[in-house]
């Protein structure tokens, strides 16, 4: 992307609340930003490093519960709880990265799904710590520089700041030897290792970074919604996060945000269809995968090439997994 279009995009995101003043749309925007952050984390490990994960909701659940418990049981202030919970999620991410040395593709996906189910069951049954299926209500909201963040609009600015910083960090990681190692492992592990890239180390690093971002998103979610239960982040959410990455454009920086927006807004726009809403949603997903394997972000490049007299159309999808 050109610097001018990045400036335009950021300006648009910052001015958005002034145009869209309705709290419901602000609420949707906030959810999109949180989901986009989880999806950004998933994109690191699945989109760039090519390790398919079907258990990423677990990292958000770990981040969410850790943050809630750290701030309520230990009285940690929000910034500490936020960082602490993301660090805890990172630890779990590194542990989940270990089997990725031996498990590939669908086998790894099943292992990650199993991991996320174990986390859900532990949360559900460890009543003394997590209050089990009743969940944890009345989680305190954050304050920033002495001001409490409570309105939807305040949350929006807080979240957008977070999202932009995390996206910049991801951009810098991808455009470094670390990112090249991730992509090399995804494209050809044997050739990568012959070049001195340690597959094991870099897969564990990718999982850990991924879990950090998804854990961070979980923590933000829990303070935003002020409530968490074992049903908040389940297998269905893991699949939804993966869909966001794929529909948006896996292995691209903008993909997770675009995907999170599409998968949050489309069901909302389709709500007039009542019971047929999810059927239509599913059909749209299938069509998207059939005709846009590079995700919605690839649409921009495709449209550019459709210009009359322009270069011949050519598929240049950044493909993964």
């Amino acid at each position, binding site marked *: 992307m050109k610097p001018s279009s990045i400036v335009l995009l950021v300006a648009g995101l910052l001015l958005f609340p002034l145009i869209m003043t309705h709290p419901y749309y602000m609420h949707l925007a906030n959810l999109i930003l949180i989901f986009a952050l989880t999806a950004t984390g998933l994109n690191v490990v699945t989109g760039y490093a090519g390790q398919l994960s079907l258990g990423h909701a677990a990292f958000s659940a770990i981040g969410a519960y850790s943050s809630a418990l750290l701030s309520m049981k230990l009285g940690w202030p929000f910034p500490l709880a936020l960082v602490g919970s993301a660090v805890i999620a990172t630890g779990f991410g590194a542990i989940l990265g270990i089997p990725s040395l031996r498990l590939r593709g669908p086998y790894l996906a099943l292992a990650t799904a199993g991991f996320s189910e174990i986390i859900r069951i532990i949360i559900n049954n460890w009543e003394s710590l997590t209050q089990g299926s009743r969940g944890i209500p009345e989680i305190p909201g954050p304050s920033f520089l002495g001001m409490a963040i409570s309105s939807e609009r305040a949350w929006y600015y807080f979240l957008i700041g977070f999202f932009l910083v995390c996206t910049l960090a991801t951009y810098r990681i991808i455009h*470094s*030897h670390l990112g090249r190692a991730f992509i*090399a492992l995804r494209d*050809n592990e*044997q050739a990568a290792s*012959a070049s001195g890239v340690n597959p*094991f180390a870099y897969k564990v690093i990718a999982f850990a970074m991924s879990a950090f971002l998804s854990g961070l998103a979980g923590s933000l979610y829990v303070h935003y919604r002020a409530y968490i239960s074992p049903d908040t982040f389940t297998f269905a959410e893991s699949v939804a996060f993966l869909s966001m990455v794929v529909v948006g454009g896996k292995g691209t920086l903008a993909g997770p945000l675009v995907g999170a927006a599409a998968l949050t807004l489309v069901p909302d726009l389709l709500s007039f269809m009542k019971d047929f809403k999810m059927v239509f949603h599913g059909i749209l997903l299938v069509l998207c995968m059939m005709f846009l394997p590079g995700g919605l972000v690839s649409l921009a490049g495709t449209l550019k090439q459709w210009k009359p007299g322009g270069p011949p159309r050519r598929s240049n999808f*950044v493909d993964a997994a």
Partner: protein
Amino acid sequence: MTLLSIEGLTKRFGGLTAVDRLDMEVSEGTIHALIGPNGSGKTTTFNMISSMLKPSSGRISFDGRNLTNKSPDAVATFGISRTFQQISLFRTMTVLQTTMVGAHLRKKTGLTGILLRTRRFRQQEIEIRQKALESLEVVGLAKMGDRMATELPYGQQRLIEVARALAVGPRLLLLDEPVAGMNPMEIEFMRQLVLKIRSRGVTILLVEHNMDLVMDISDKVTVISSGRKIAEGLPREVRSAPVVVENYLGRGIKVA
């Protein structure tokens, strides 16, 4: 001086012994060819040297240090790099990016350096890029850096593999059938390239079926058949050895 030393190297796949008690020494600064009929265990030997495969028994040492049972990425840190018989490029990378992966071991910074874009990190990226460009220059692809690696013609894809292997900064370069499927012009280019790489002080171990090329550029040739070494020596000695003619070159075929 012996750079690579292989003693009693054996690889069994179930009941099949692909490589059988192979002894071999590669001297520093030479072009050493490993030849033999299809299925004689050449690539298996290559894969054991680069640790893609674990030997069943035997020992490999490089410059006096034990290389057996190291991981493939650790082998690269020893100063050994390779190309693949089946072209193994990164399908979403440009030629330059692909070659920069070869220079991966020149990294000097961790996460902090990456996130803060420190001077050290920027310096490192410049060095990695420089090394990659230099390697592309050697193989004659310096102008192709921005093209997608997999979009280039077959012969050039093989050259990208060589450039990536050179970017590792190897003392020993393993070339697995570098001219397979190439036309005579490309073969001639590769011949000169291999000689040029050797003149830069890199030792080369070569697996190749093109006998004209092997006999022309090699300093030493090892012949294996059914996993066993059947002959070794200068190209002209090996070419006329009855056991080699019998097992590999065949009667009535004249080697130029």
